[in-house]
C-alpha cells in the first residue's frame, strides 16, 4: 500500500491505486454491514411495528430494554457472540467463529435494537395520525402493520441508515468474532486498528477517510431515493 505523511494524500493514493487487497477489505466491509442491516430490518421492522400497534402487559418493559440495547457496547455484543460460536460454546458445532458470517451475526445484534426501537417510534407516530381512518376502513391491527410500514418508508430509510452507520463504524465486535484475518475477515475498521498499532498513522487515517467517504456515498444515495419518492407522492 502506498504511504505518505499526509493522510488525505494517502487516502487519494489508496483510491487511485485501488489494489486488490484494499478492494477486498472495502467490499467485505460493505457486504458484512449491508447483510447485517438487511437481516436486522427483516426482524426489526415487523417487531417495531408490532410494538407500536399492540398493547400487551410488559410492553413498556420491552420498549425500555430495546432502547437501552441501542447503547450496547460493540465489544460486549462481540464477546457474547464469541462465547456462543466458540467451539466450547453452545453453537460451536457450526464452526462459524472467525468467519464473515460470525461478523454478520455480531453486527445484527448491534443493529436490531436500533431498527426495532426507531421503527416503533415512527409507526406509533403515524398510527396516531391515521388510526381513525384505518379503523373506518375496517382494517384489523394485523392488516394495518404493512400499510403503516409502507407509509413510513421514507422515515424508515433513515432508520436503516442509522443502523448501517452503527454496523460499518463499529470495530469491537468484528475484531473479536472475526479475528481480523487478512483476506478473510479483515474489514475497514479492523484495518484501521491494525495500522494504528503499527504506528502507521497516515495510512490508518487514510483508510478512515475512505470509510467515511463510502458511508457518505451510501447516505447520499438513500437521500436521493427519499427525495424522489417524496416528489412522486406530491
Amino acid at each position: 500500500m502506498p504511504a505518505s505523511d499526509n493522510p488525505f494524500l494517502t487516502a487519494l493514493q489508496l483510491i487511485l491505486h485501488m489494489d486488490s487487497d484494499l478492494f477486498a477489505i472495502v467490499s467485505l466491509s460493505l457486504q458484512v454491514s449491508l447483510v447485517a442491516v438487511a437481516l436486522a430490518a427483516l426482524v426489526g421492522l415487523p417487531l417495531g411495528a408490532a410494538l407500536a400497534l399492540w398493547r400487551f402487559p410488559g410492553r413498556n418493559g420491552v420498549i425500555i430494554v430495546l432502547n437501552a440495547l441501542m447503547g450496547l457496547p460493540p465489544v460486549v455484543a462481540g464477546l457474547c457472540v464469541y462465547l456462543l460460536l466458540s467451539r466450547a460454546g453452545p453453537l460451536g458445532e457450526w464452526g462459524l467463529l472467525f468467519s464473515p458470517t460470525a461478523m454478520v451475526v455480531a453486527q445484527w445484534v448491534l443493529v436490531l435494537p436500533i431498527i426495532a426501537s426507531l421503527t416503533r417510534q415512527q409507526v406509533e407516530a403515524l398510527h396516531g395520525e391515521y388510526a381513525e381512518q384505518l379503523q373506518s376502513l375496517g382494517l384489523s391491527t394485523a392488516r394495518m402493520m404493512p400499510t403503516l410500514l409502507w407509509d413510513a418508508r421514507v422515515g424508515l430509510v433513515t432508520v436503516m441508515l442509522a443502523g448501517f452507520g452503527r454496523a460499518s463504524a463499529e470495530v469491537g465486535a468484528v475484531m473479536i468474532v472475526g479475528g481480523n484475518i487478512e483476506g478473510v475477515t479483515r474489514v475497514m475498521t479492523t484495518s484501521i486498528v491494525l495500522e494504528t498499532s503499527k504506528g502507521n498513522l497516515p495510512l490508518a487515517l487514510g483508510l478512515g477517510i475512505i470509510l467515511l467517504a463510502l458511508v457518505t456515498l451510501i447516505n447520499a444515495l438513500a437521500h436521493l431515493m427519499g427525495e424522489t419518492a417524496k416528489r412522486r407522492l406530491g
Partner: protein
Amino acid sequence: MKKTAIITSASLLSLAWGGLALADNDYITLASTTSTENSGLFDAIIPTFTDKTDIDVRVVAVGTGQAFETARRGDADSLLVHDTAGEEQFVAEGYATERLDVMYNDFVIVGPSDDPADIQSSETVSEAMQQIAESESAFASRGDDSGTNRAELRLWEDAGVNPQGEWYRELGSGMGPTLNTAAGMNAYTLTDRATWVSFENPQDLTLLFEGDEALFNQYGSLLISEERHPHLKHDLAAQWHEWLVSEEGQAAIADYEVDGQQLFFPNAE
C-alpha cells in the same frame, strides 16, 4: 412499486450474501501474537508454506494470554506464541501434545532520547529496571497478560522491584498501541525488537538498552491435542508445525528482514 422494491432488496441481499461465501481452500486457523503479525513475519513466510502444501494459514493475532484461551476453547488449529513457561503448562494440562522451539528474537527497552533514568549506562537489564524505578521515570507496561507483559513482570521480579506508583502505567493494550502511548507520554517501555523495528511512530523514543541474555524472547509452536479437540484440522496443523522447524521453514524465517535487519532467529533443534 412495492413489489419491485422487495425484489430489488432481496436480490441485493442474495448478491451480498453470495459474496460472503469464500473459496474453500484447505486452511488452518493459527492463534498467534501481535508481535509476529505486526512485524510482517507471517506475510513473508506463509506464502512459502502455502506454495508448498496448498494450505492457507489464517492468522488471528492477539496477546499470548488470549491466544492460549482461544486454543483452549478449541477455536484454533495451531498455536505459535512466546511464553515458554505458559506453553509448557499448556502441554502439562493436556491441551497440547508437543511444544517445539521455533525461533527467537529479543526484547529491548526504549524510552525518551534524553534518558532521564540513565539506563544507557546500565550493565544489566536488572540494573536498568532498578534505575527506572528509582528515578520514578514513567514506564508504560502492556498490562494485558501477553507474552511481553509476562516477560516484563519476570524482569521486575528479577530486579527485586515491585513496580507500583504513579510512574508505572498499565495500559492493557497490544504492543503497537503501547508504543503509541509510550511515545505520547515519553515513557520507557519494554518491546520485542521486531515490533520496534517495524514501528513507524516512535516520535522521541529511541532504543536505550539491549543485549542482556535475560531479554531473550523464545517462540514456540504447539501441536494441539487431538483428544481434547477432535474436530480440529490436526493433519494440516501438524504439517505447519513440522514445516516451521524444517530446514525450509527455518530458512524462510531467517530470510525475513526489515531495513536490512534480521528480526527473527530460527533455533529449532
